[in-house]
């Protein structure tokens, strides 16, 4: 028994002098690497309306919608609306987009209490 008790002491002393591992979230955060599949960044001006992203999405989280009335002249085609509630953040839409309009950022801080923010319109906040 005594050897078990003594065996702990070197570890105890080491822990006295090492830094705590706690990260004071949300004031600090551990760095998120590039290439992490987070929130989508969609550029409507690069989009060609090819609908490939809606067809490749495994969960049918992307639905092609028309532009709102006032912008329909400038944007006559249909554009992807992403439902983040269904999205599994796989990145297939990013990989298949031929014009680079659909990319994924490293933003993972997407929790919300407001359900209306879950459906991401292609025209941003209108």
């Amino acid at each position, binding site marked *: 028994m005594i050897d*078990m008790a003594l065996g702990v002491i070197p570890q105890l002393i080491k822990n006295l002098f090492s830094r705590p591992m706690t990260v004071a979230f949300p004031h600090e955060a551990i760095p*998120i*690497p*590039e*290439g*992490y*599949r987070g929130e989508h960044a969609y550029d409507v001006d690069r989009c060609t309306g090819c609908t*490939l992203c809606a*067809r*490749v999405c*495994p969960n049918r989280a992307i639905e092609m919608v028309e532009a709102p009335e006032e912008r329909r002249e400038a944007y006559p085609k249909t554009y992807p609306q992403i439902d983040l509630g269904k999205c*599994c*953040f*796989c*990145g*297939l839409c990013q*990989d*298949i987009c031929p014009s680079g309009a659909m990319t994924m950022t490293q933003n993972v801080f997407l929790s919300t209490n407001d359900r209306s923010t879950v459906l991401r319109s292609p025209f941003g906040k209108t």
Partner: protein
Amino acid sequence: MAKGRRAADGYDLYFGPVHPGSGNFGVKLTVEGERVVAARADPGYLHRGFEKLMEYRTPMQNAVLSDRLCILESLNWNLVHAEAVDRLCGTEIPERAKTIRVILAELSRIQSHIIWYGVLSKALGFDTGFKVAFGYRDYVLDLFEFVTGGRVYPAGYICPGGVRRDIPEGTKRRIVELLAKLERMIREFEAYDSKTIAVRCRGIGVLELDDALRLGATGPVLRASGLSADVRRDAPYEIYDDLDFEIPVREEGDAFARSIIRRREIEESIRIVRQALGRLTAEPLPPVKPKTAGKLPEGEVYVRNEIARGEAAVYLRSVGESHPYRCKIRGPDLLHMIPVLEHLLVGAEVADVPAIYWSLNICPADMDR
């Protein structure tokens, strides 16, 4: 409890599914006093109907779905599915992609065994082992985050055609650092053994070889009962026939033998990753572009892989459409959690139930699919 009957005369005890030591799976134990006289598995809490879901999606979409077959070893399941589609289509995978696949699959196996060690310790009451194990697992997940873009869900990183994108700059260095940490971890685990896992697991849950074969055990459970069988050596896939590794086998068949085998497997996996890193060629690897059109050739294929828990297999049948016609998924846990578990629990003491249960390293997700 019926009137006039003493509580010790046989009562039903539910081990799970809302039990911290059982995962999403329940076992109904009929107990007399301290001894289990009958066990009945209660599966189905995680049934999502994968086999049917996969009939409605193209292979690339199925690759994303295949991580969720068993989240504890997602890259291994990605690999089985990707191999099945590749073999059906006759695709040639570049050497660099095969090496990356093997490296990630072995790291995923290591990570799965770390989870097993942590949860076994937790179930036995050894909380420190749990925390240390999951602390080390975090280093492996950091590497997965760096390479695949997600800590736990690699989103079909190993996909039909190779891997979704090439490994980023600096991966090799990080893997070498990670392997050094993992070797330190194994020494720590071994140091704790004699007073913790060995005491609770020695002689418990003995599975004889004939029973193991009859009940369908595979992987470490079968190897602990004395048969040296490993799909990586018996039916090699990817680059395993060029790599040099041992298959640990024990004769006792008890829970402790299974524990020793899994720890030795972590060491062997580290060896495999080192060899594979040495074989990584320098040619650039183009990313695999997902397609929405394109048909699978007609045919059928049955591919077996050795995942951390045992033998995993996918039977893919296609009639020439863009979706598979039938995708049967065979996981090791359907056999381990129902026939093997029910057999081993009969006659055990209630206090030994967590030790037996977790020594089988079960995963309800790939049983229910």
